[in-house]
């Protein structure tokens, strides 16, 4: 008879940039009410269900891998969430933006309405809490807003102004409206500008990143 390990695993948490911001605001929004789990860094192709030594060794390449420390940037961590689905699920919820890549002319507009496939037993559907969209370089668009989710947080994100720097911008909605920049000087000698658009389902945790190209008109 051996001793069972009854100790509770303890890990130290760090505040994210967003957490520090909300803590500093002291307006009651820094209140932990829910959690999610993620498997960032895991490559499931390392899992080997045909391992010659048997099932105890299927995950040996993953089990002892060293993990990186946490990043405080909330957009760079918790990328791939673990989800609760009924046993026997053959398809995981995935996002469909209607585009594998976006190429848009200078000054043109585009509306994106994401859908979630394989969600809540339906082939496709919309998530009740909407979607989060992050454009990696906010300068590429004169307009980058989300509509359809009317929480104060979502509305506040839409009116946030960031001028002159190549930082990302996050908005929340069920539809995202984009209008490409009309500023020629941004292109320099290039004929196109590049960025990425990352959309995450706020309920399912499904996530999709696609490339975005803005082409110069004249």
């Amino acid at each position, binding site marked *: 008879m051996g001793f069972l390990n009854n100790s509770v695993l303890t890990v130290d948490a760090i505040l994210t940039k967003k957490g520090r911001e909300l803590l500093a605001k002291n307006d009651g*929004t820094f209140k932990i009410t829910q959690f999610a789990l993620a498997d960032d860094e895991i490559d499931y192709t390392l899992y080997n269900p045909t391992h010659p030594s048997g099932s105890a060794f299927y995950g040996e390449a993953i089990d002892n891998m060293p993990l990186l420390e*946490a990043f405080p940037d909330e957009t760079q961590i918790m990328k791939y969430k673990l989800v609760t689905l009924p046993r026997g699920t053959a398809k995981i*919820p995935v996002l469909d933006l209607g585009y594998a890549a976006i190429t848009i002319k200078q000054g043109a507009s585009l509306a994106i309405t994401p859908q979630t496939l394989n969600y809540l037993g339906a082939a496709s559907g919309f998530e009740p809490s909407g979607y989060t969209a992050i454009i990696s370089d906010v300068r590429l668009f004169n307009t980058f807003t989300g509509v359809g989710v009317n929480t104060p947080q979502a509305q506040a994100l839409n009116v946030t102004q960031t001028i002159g720097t190549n930082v990302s911008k996050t908005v929340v909605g069920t539809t995202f409206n984009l209008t490409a920049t009309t500023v020629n000087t941004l292109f320099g000698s290039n004929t196109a500008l590049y960025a990425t658009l990352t959309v995450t389902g706020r309920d399912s945790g499904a996530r999709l990143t696609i490339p975005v190209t803005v082409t110069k008109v004249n």
Partner: protein
Amino acid sequence: MSFKRLDSEDFLVSADSITAALFSGNIATQTVFFTSSVQEAGASGDYYLSVYQTASSEPTAEVQFDLAFGEKNGSGSLYFNSSVPGKSPSRTVYGQYRTLVLGNENAEFIFGNATGSAFYVISLERSRYKEKLLPGSFNLTLTFGSATVRLTDNSGDTSTITYTDSGRVFQIVSGSNGRAYTGTGYTVASGSFGLFLPDIGTVLLNAKALDLSAANGGIGLSTGFNANTDDNNNRKIFNAIKAGQSFTLNSEETLTSDYVYIRGRNQEFNYSENPSFVSGSTGEVLYGDFINNPQSYVTTVGLYNDNNDLLAVAKLSRPLQKDFTKEFLVRVKLDF
């Protein structure tokens, strides 16, 4: 589906006492002591003498504590203005600590069972002791000539803690590690050797007790009480500490931590949105085995508010396997 709400019983607030060596470099006992001639000659030198753990010119030099002398009538130091008797740095220091410790301009300092009108101050540098001093860890050896006295606070002999305006107060007695060698550890004629005030990081040493001869329990320090005269008392107590070559003190800090218990039931969190978990753009799981027996690996715990803002994040040291036969319990510690 990917978020799980926390219940009130998932939160725990814990306040733990953390103790540490007080002096720079995590040294519990400081044996060498240095001053700065620049500081001593400056305006602050009239009031206090800063003590370093190494030569003050060294890049690693840090102030460990300051020494000051207070006297009720302003003796032992030069008057600010010779035409205004009694107003001097020693009088200022006395009044400063009387207000701080006693909170009453008419009160007298009581050292054990004797009233004292003069004291030496050891004011510990705030960054050294963080929050407060640890009672029972104060051990100071003072040597003057051939006389030596070993002092400690009497927290180990005290069953009832006494409070002043500056928090807890313990008597400083002849002894070690919080206990007197014999009896109360006081001197016969001048009461205790001073007051240990852990909550304000201060030690007051009773000048009269130290001035007693070795036969009477003191070290014959010869504190100067001359009017309108710089008797250099700060230097005298520094020399006694330096000659004693032993000053031990620990700090104490109360660290408040929020613990959040993260519980994943056997039915939960068994599938993943990780792109390597699926084999194609339509979401089929990577292996046929994963349909009825999915294996997920937890590496990261995210704590969210109601708006799904990621407030805090914790990483595990290695991936933790999760499937329909396993449950998951992690305690996440949040320090502020």
